[in-house]
């Protein structure tokens, strides 16, 4: 977890530990410094028998420097983490934009195919070839249901095309002429689909009208 922060945190902890060690050894020295004035005979003696005063000073200075370096490294790490986060956000945003653009292109491709198929179905209806019209209507309904621009009217149109396909198949199988009401509803469906195609196929969205002052 947090690989970029782990190292600076470790360094910070190490620095603090060094400071504490240095401080622990420096304190007796300071106290002893006071006593130096009292007695020179004990100047170089080591109560602990471990380090001289000079080494303790060196250790204290190293500890302090370590803390400063660690703090700077820690800040640098934080800065890098924030930069990495913003880079990740930017790349994710770019990925979403690329996806949306691909979706728009795919929708445009589908719309052009839908337009062609609609013309084909209309031609079959005009010539009374109901079975062929029914097959093409099924393809049309499938294509329309694949449009993913989030407009619920596409789903509605896909449903209507599916229903119309069943009726066209029934007319084709019965061999009877198509009823007037079914023809009228087909014309309505064709008009609705055509206007939706025109609306989607526009190169630019319609400009919003400015409110009149």
């Amino acid at each position, binding site marked *: 977890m947090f690989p970029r922060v782990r190292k600076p945190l470790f360094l910070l902890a190490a620095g603090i530990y060094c400071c504490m060690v240095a401080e622990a050894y420096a304190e007796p020295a300071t106290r002893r410094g006071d006593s130096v004035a009292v007695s020179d005979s004990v100047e170089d003696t080591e109560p602990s028998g471990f380090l001289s005063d000079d080494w303790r000073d060196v250790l204290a200075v190293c500890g302090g420097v370590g803390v400063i370096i660690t703090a700077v490294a820690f800040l640098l790490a934080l800065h890098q983490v924030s930069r990495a986060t913003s880079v990740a956000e930017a790349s994710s945003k770019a990925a979403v934009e690329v996806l949306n653009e691909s979706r728009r292109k795919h929708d445009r491709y589908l719309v052009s195919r839908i337009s062609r198929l609609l013309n084909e179905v209309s031609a079959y209806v005009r010539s009374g070839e109901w079975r062929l019209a029914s097959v093409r209507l099924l393809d049309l309904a499938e294509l329309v249901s694949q449009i993913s621009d989030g407009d619920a009217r596409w789903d509605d149109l896909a449903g209507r095309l599916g229903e119309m396909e069943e009726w066209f198949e029934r007319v084709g199988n019965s061999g009877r002429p198509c009823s007037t009401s079914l023809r009228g*509803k087909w014309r309505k469906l064709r008009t609705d689909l055509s206007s939706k195609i025109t609306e989607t196929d526009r190169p630019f969205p319609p400009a919003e009208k400015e409110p009149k002052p």
Partner: protein
Amino acid sequence: MTTTDKFREILQRLLEKSKAGKINWRETHPGEFSILFADGSIIAVRYDSPRSGPDMITADLLIAGAPVVSVQSEDGDEDWELLSSLHFDAELHARGWNSAFGTIEKALQSNETIGWQK
């Protein structure tokens, strides 16, 4: 003669009686008009207009609430003329349009000035 043919004949006679204004129709559902008989049986005539299909009229004979005979016709079928006339007439009577039309026709036949009072 099948039950359906018998029912078709009854519907034809029902139309004649309805045109004579001797049937009290009631709109039981939007687009559905029915008649109740003494034994509790009902004849209901319903007009359906699906969004992507032909218009359809169905006449049902219901005994104890369950349909026992039914005649259905799509726009353009052989029974369409009979069922659409029956449905239209039922609608005229049940919604009171028949009396409104009668009043208007009487008003048009008279020589008096008609319309809003000045």
